């Protein structure tokens, strides 16, 4: 039978917390995260899947929250930038970005860090070419990318040696 709906109940985990909400099927994940959950670390800029500032991880895989319907997150585990640090201790990727000055205005940073997280889960020791290739869909207008590459390398070293 066809099931036709205007609203959907979604039960998911966001940064480890259980969420149970009803959303209009037209709602984009970026709005659900920013407006309904007040997690404003996830940004929006291009709105067309090019810049990567809206990157979140859905079941570990990066997606553009600007072009992903929130109801699709039913049953999924979502990670946003707010879920990375434990208490006041930064995640090793966040720390590496700080140490390498890989963030200036910071607008691209949440997406960059989440994309890096999924890269390092896929490949614990990526070379620079792999890093550039994986992060090519995350744009940064400030740093010139070199500090970001260094930060990813540093983070991968630290995570491997931990």
């Amino acid at each position, binding site marked *: *039978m066809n099931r036709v709906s205007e609203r959907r109940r979604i039960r998911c985990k966001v940064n480890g917390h259980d969420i149970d909400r009803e959303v209009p099927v037209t709602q984009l994940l970026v709005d659900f995260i920013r407006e309904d959950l007040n997690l404003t670390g996830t940004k929006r800029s291009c709105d067309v*899947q090019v810049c990567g500032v809206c990157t979140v991880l859905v079941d570990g895989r990066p997606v*553009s929250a600007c072009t992903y319907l929130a109801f699709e997150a039913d049953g999924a585990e979502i990670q946003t930038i707010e879920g990375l640090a434990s208490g006041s201790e930064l995640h090793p990727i966040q720390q590496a970005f700080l140490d390498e000055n890989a963030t200036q205005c910071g607008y691209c940073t949440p997406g960059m860090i989440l994309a890096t997280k999924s890269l390092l889960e896929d490949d614990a020791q990526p070379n620079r070419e792999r890093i550039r290739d994986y992060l090519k869909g995350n744009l940064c207008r400030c740093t010139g990318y070199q500090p970001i590459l260094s930060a990813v390398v540093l983070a991968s070293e630290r995570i491997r040696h931990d």
Partner: protein
Amino acid sequence: MLKSFRICEPGSVEEACEFLAQHGLAAAVYAGGTELLLAMKEDLLAPEYLVDVKHLGLGGISFSSSGREVRIGATTTHRELEAWSASRSQWEALAEMEHGVANVRVRNQGTIGGNLCFGEPHADPGTLLSAWDASVEITDPHGRRQLPIGGFLLDEFATALAEGDVMTAVVIPPAPARSGTAYLRFGFLERPTIGVATQVALDPDGETVSQTRIAVGAVGPRPERIEPAESELVGVHSGTGEWPMAVARAASRAAETCTVAADAHGSEDYKRHLVEVFVWRALEVARARAHADAARNAGQ
């Protein structure tokens, strides 16, 4: 912001087709949404119903019973295809093609069916599938039909899909013996400025070219097979000085005869130049792969 619409989740492909046929332009197939939602944001499309085809068992990659034909379900994502082909040496061209598509986020969400059904000329899969003489399987309220990829991609943003149609699979025929395929793409924007797919097959002597296929995409309204260029190479001895001469002829024939259109990616002249260079390079890669394949077969 998206205008109001409803999501329809059909229980089967047949139900999806019937719903689509009944609602006509008011309903659109919804897979990954990476193109559809963008078109809706821009108000280019305003469907009242999005018919979600992701839960109808249309995903996945399988071999036919003969073990050689490959069937790719329409809702298979680019990332799934990328991972599948990366671990199979015979499918390196598919891996190359899929790896180049968009960015990792679009590849996670976007499907092969959505890519083909949108008919965007600046795309990769249709070009490689043209070089392979692949077909697409379409299901409608009355049954199924298969169309060659060239009969499906008709023009920019125009396909053979009719109301009530759902693409259910892509079917790739077996590769000829002693053959190799290459896919090269180039571009400086998100989407490809050019994509070239070539296949070279060799005679049992492992040297003489028995068949070549050259497909060029993204420079014109749809992927195009360049038959006058293909025929330049047949019968050529691929291990001697004949080969570079024939490749040069084929590449310049392709550049002359290919349909190209100027746009934000470049002028007509620039694109013809790219066609020449990339057909040349892709033929060299395909030749090397065909030789490797012939050597593997001879060793068996």
